[in-house]
């Protein structure tokens, strides 16, 4: 009887404690302080006033859930990714809400590709596969950019410049590699003329033509023709390029690893490209199968030299954890802080700031 009473008391204490912990979410407390320390004077930011955690956070883009806005602003993450909404008004309200009171404005991105279109409920665009000429590509890029700008977005994870799309059959431009490269460059020019950062994807190519029937890692031999659309887009001034999880050989050697975590692949891209290198979503099986659920993938993603890490299946506690891991890797020398600083400078410059 006494043992049962003791057990009752013990269990009651445990229940009370866990109830309180559930309410306050103690196990996954988001480690962030309000970014009041960041010195912003007009359009100039003193990067030295940012903590390491804030700099790492600037390199992360997450799913744009308005419920997470306060925490993401507190952490000072670099941007958010939006998906389909019913009306233009819904987009305007969301983008205005997310940017309100931001110390450093978010990148606000979406996948506006054509046949994949978050505005489809109120605005239709042709799929890239149906675009006949480079002039048409410019016009489509410009019209998509105009709408995105009106709705408060500033970055498009597009165009898809894989030379073949045998999975969706609509996401890539059609024609020869030269045709695709020319259309891609004109699309980029049209989109960016409206103030939207273009992000040709998915470097180094062959991401939409490699089937993975066994759901294992994805290997591809990369040809010069796969790289040509990226080169022409970069020459057209694309502000960013998205890098994929394909394990490449041939024209781009990813060292037997997913391209996003290959220092060699990222360095090859950056040899002729000064814009932002954005990872494809880091929850993709192409990355998860290689690393499992190990935190090592976060270290390798940042160590590889990417400027922005995209996590669309994100939550504030998960983002906080990623920052913890990367901060630790900087302190142990696995990632250099100067590399972080270089990426943050590029990000802030792309947002219209000078840095000191």
């Amino acid at each position, binding site marked *: 009887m006494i043992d049962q009473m003791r057990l009752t008391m013990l269990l009651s204490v445990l229940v009370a404690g866990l109830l309180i912990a559930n309410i306050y979410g103690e196990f996954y407390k988001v480690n962030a302080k309000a970014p009041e320390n960041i010195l912003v004077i007009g359009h100039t930011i003193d990067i030295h006033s940012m903590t390491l955690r804030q700099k790492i956070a600037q390199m992360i883009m997450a799913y744009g859930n308005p419920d997470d806005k306060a925490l993401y602003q507190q952490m000072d993450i670099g941007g958010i990714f939006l998906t389909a909404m019913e009306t233009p008004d819904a987009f305007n309200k969301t983008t205005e809400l997310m940017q309100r009171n931001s110390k450093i404005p978010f990148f606000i991105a979406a996948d506006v590709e054509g046949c994949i279109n978050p505005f489809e409920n109120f605005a*239709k665009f042709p799929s890239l596969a149906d675009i006949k000429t480079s002039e048409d590509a410019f016009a489509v890029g410009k019209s998509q950019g105009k709408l995105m700008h009106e709705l408060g977005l500033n970055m498009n994870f597009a165009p898809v410049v894989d030379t073949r799309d045998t999975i*969706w059959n609509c996401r890539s431009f059609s024609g020869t590699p030269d045709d695709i490269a020319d259309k891609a460059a004109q699309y980029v020019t049209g989109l960016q003329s409206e103030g939207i950062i273009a992000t040709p994807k998915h470097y180094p190519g062959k991401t939409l033509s490699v089937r993975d029937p066994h759901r294992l890692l994805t290997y591809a031999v990369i040809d010069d023709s796969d790289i040509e659309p990226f080169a022409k887009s970069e020459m057209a001034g694309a502000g960013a390029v998205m890098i994929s999880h394909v394990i490449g050989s041939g024209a781009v050697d990813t060292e037997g690893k997913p391209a996003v975590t290959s220092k060699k692949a990222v360095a090859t891209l950056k040899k002729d490209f000064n814009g932002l290198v954005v990872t494809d*979503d880091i929850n993709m099986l*192409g990355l998860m199968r290689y690393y499992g659920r190990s935190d090592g993938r976060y270290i390798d993603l940042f160590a590889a030299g990417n400027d922005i890490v995209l996590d669309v299946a994100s939550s504030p506690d998960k983002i906080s954890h990623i920052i913890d891991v990367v901060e630790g890797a900087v302190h142990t020398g696995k990632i250099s802080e100067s590399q972080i600083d270089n990426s943050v400078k590029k990000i802030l410059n792309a947002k219209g700031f000078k840095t000191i």
Partner: protein
Amino acid sequence: MGKLAILNIALFIAVIALFINLAGPKDITAKVVFSLDQSEPKCIFELQDKQTIIDDMSVCCFELQKQLACTHDNTINGDFICSTSSYGAQYKVNAKAINYCTTQGYRIKTK
């Protein structure tokens, strides 16, 4: 069994439930349903009557999250149609796929 013993069993179950809710992923329901559902996740992309199977579930989940909503397809029990408009691209998925994506942290809007 004495009343105290019954109370202790109830408290023990409460401890387990609260601990799982605190330490595990938020959507416990999806996790439980996913485990109990023995079918394979299914994801089919359809545009202009042409269908393609999306083998990679992570790619499927990302695409589903981009859609406006996933609604029940009354023609096939347990399946959903995920799209942004009535005339554009669609994804036809089963409940297993929806639950898998939810357990992986993707935000799938279902009606």
